[in-house]
């Protein structure tokens, strides 16, 4: 086999080509997903149509998709910042929970304050919560070289369990019939919604964040330092940058932004803190950040697609498929798109010389 294929290195700088390769990856993922669906006794085309229809086919679907887009996008922006510096913050999930806790704490304690004061306070608290969560791995990484992939991941469980402790214990709603939830926030802690929909102002915050972060990363001195350190920390040190400080700072900003995703969820959607309030947004955010090539603007569109994937997953439940079909597809898409990246670095072609030789033999 190897003999008939020619694999050569190449340097691809063609934007359209790169885009096409990624679309190709998504297509392959859908085909693989289809094979799985066929084996589990479903008609793949029907399932996909149902998903697309559920997510984008109606005003309700689109609204729900946007609601899911908000936490995905904000968390993806958060992790993108750390990824730019090659800091593998896979702890967005925990940072979302930490942000949710802090925002809820503020909402529950200062419910009497007006919205204009309370909501910014909740946001700042959520940022600090997420930042604190990421700061622990950041310090460990800076001073003792601890692998942040593992520490940020472990911090996820700590965050999730803290929420459980609070909603089962001290913060449990006394009128909540023993459900693991806090009391509902006062309405001034709710993020305003658009019309009668569930779409809340968080989408504006998220898109605003995308542009701010884009500018921060690409136009500022700090963004420059992050990019240099992300490419090569030896170069950064050589250029006189304080890499230790930047590792902690970057992880904190990264975690802080992911924390805001926790705030928009508790404040904009569920209006209280509850057990498992994020169904893995922090993990999907990692996939989104990668598919968007760590570009904050591209992340807006990828998040919207992934929001649709989740909503579409709910839609197929009616046909007897679990909603986790959406998760499976997420995984397949990441796998195939990352796999397809191989083709941006290498050209694979059929070795014509080999075949022409073979023909010569036949003719001779």
């Amino acid at each position, binding site marked *: 086999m*190897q003999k008939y294929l020619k694999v050569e290195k190449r340097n691809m700088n063609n934007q359209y080509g790169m885009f096409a390769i990624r679309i190709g990856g998504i297509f392959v993922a859908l085909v693989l997903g289809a094979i799985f669906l066929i084996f589990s006794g479903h008609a793949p085309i029907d399932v996909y149509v149902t998903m697309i229809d559920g997510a984008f086919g109606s005003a309700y679907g689109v609204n729900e998709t946007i609601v899911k887009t908000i936490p995905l996008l904000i968390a993806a922006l958060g992790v993108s910042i750390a990824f730019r510096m090659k800091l593998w913050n896979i702890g967005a999930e925990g940072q979302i929970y930490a942000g949710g806790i802090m925002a809820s704490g503020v909402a529950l304690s200062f419910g009497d304050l007006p919205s204009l004061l309370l909501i910014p306070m909740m946001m700042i608290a959520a940022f600090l919560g997420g930042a604190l969560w990421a700061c622990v791995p950041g310090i460990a990484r800076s001073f003792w070289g601890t692998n942040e992939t593992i520490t940020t991941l472990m911090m996820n469980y700590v965050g999730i369990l803290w929420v459980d402790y609070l909603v089962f214990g001290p913060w449990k709603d006394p009128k909540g019939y023993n459900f693991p939830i806090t009391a509902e926030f006062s309405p001034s802690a709710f993020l305003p919604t658009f019309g009668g929909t569930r779409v809340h102002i968080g989408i504006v915050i998220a898109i605003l964040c995308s542009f701010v972060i884009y500018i921060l990363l690409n136009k500022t001195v700090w963004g420059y330092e992050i990019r240099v350190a992300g490419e*090569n920390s030896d170069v950064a040190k*050589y250029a006189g940058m304080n890499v230790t400080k930047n590792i902690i700072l970057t992880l904190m900003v990264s975690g802080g932004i992911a924390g805001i995703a926790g705030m928009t969820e508790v404040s904009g959607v569920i209006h209280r803190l509850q057990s498992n309030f994020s169904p893995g947004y922090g993990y999907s955010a990692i996939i989104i950040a990668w598919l968007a090539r760590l570009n904050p603007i591209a992340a807006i569109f990828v998040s919207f697609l992934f929001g649709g994937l989740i909503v579409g997953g709910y839609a197929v439940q009616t046909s007897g498929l679990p909603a986790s079909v959406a998760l499976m597809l997420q995984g397949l898409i990441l796998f195939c798109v990352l796999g397809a990246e191989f083709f941006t670095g290498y050209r694979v072609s059929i070795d014509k010389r080999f075949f022409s030789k073979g023909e010569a033999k036949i003719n001779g």
Partner: protein
Amino acid sequence: MKEKRLVSMKGIGKKFGDKWVNEQVEFELRAGEIHALLGENGAGKSTLMNILAGVYKQDAGQLLLHGKEAILTSPKDAIQNGVGMIHQHFKLVENLTASENIILGYKKTFFLNRKNISEEILKFSQKYGLSINPNDYVYHMSVGEKQRIEILKALYRGADILILDEPTAVLTPQETKELFDILRKMADRGCGIVIITHKMKEVMEIADRITVLRKGRKEGTVLKREVDEQRLTEMMIGKYASERKMKDRQVTNEVGLEIENVTIKNDKGFVAVENMSFDVKKGEIVGIAGISGNGQKELAEAIAGLREIEKGNIKIDHEGIKEKNPRQIIDMGLSYVPEDRMGMGLVGNMDITDNLILKDYRKKKARKGIFIQKKKVRENAKDVIDQFEIKIENIDAPIRTLSGGNLQKILLGREILEDPKVLIAAYPVRGLDIATTEAVYDLLLEQRNRGCAVLFISEDLDYIMQLSDRIVAIEGGKVAGIVKPDETTVEEIGMMMLDGQVG
């Protein structure tokens, strides 16, 4: 001797993208000869030999091995056809022994009889005069030994066509001599040997025939006894290499850089530089002569503040740097051209503008508040491109695809743009072609004449002799001797580098 043809390459062409890097190249190797492949960087030497070694496939032309047409699809294919290539960067497993490395991927038996294999390899190595200890671990070995393992690895697999890519780049003069003895012995036994190089001296010393490539095309094949160095240089670069405007030196007595009883540890925590003292005056080039790995890297990094000074102190313009961080040292007027261009000095995935502001990005000329003034610095970058004649197609493209020479111009350009007080240049011409080498040396001389204290680290003794005002020979992290170039010889310095004392 009967002239058996081991290799004939006919009309070889190779394209990378749309660019032909080899075009219509003819190459022939006979049994028993040492054939030098000479050319500037980017002349297509390595590409041609990589085709022969099965790493690349030619896009045009025909390859004959031992008189039969061969289609190589992999290096493994090549070795089965008797072609072994020893790359510049050795491909050995550090944590295995010599004999384990030699049989790696070759012996297919499930169990290994280590004793038998070691004996077999020992016998084999003695046959060719390659002294090794089969049971030594590779990480214990010197560069010369590692190279011998690579050669043995090829021979053990039955190679009679041996390609060596810049084999002497990492060797001491003595090791080079040993290598040449071995190669001669192998040629006498009927092997054909190709040496890729751009060192004229070695070509004249070892080669029987010489093929010169220029811009991907063959310039000619000549017998060594019929040419001289000048003729070869002309073939390589097409014009006379300019004689350098050398010695208008203005050494002052004012000290620019002072190394005072300095001790530095390496990454593994061992002492790499021990109690070293010397100084560099303003307007002086001091050359550090030593075999790579004798403390040069650690010394340079310590001066730049990237490595802790255990004992003693380093002073720039009479000011100690021990308690200072790299940024403060940069601001004191230090510029540093590190050995590892892409690993430390430049960011391959960024464009030239971003690379040029690496040291200045936080200064007024590059920033406005929290923002980088990309437009302004991009204009400055254009000036730098003109001034240093950097060949670049797209100013906004990542620099990783540029040639080594252009990269070094960007790096050196950035480092001297700010008129540094002290300039460290570590192996500044490694891997560069003659024309760029000359340009880089001219820039260093310019800096010296301007009054900069230049510390020049190199392994090329000829150039150290030519360029330096004083030479510090080091061995084992200690100063072995400080001499003036007109009062010493290359041999004497070579002895100091090896023995750590004046010979």
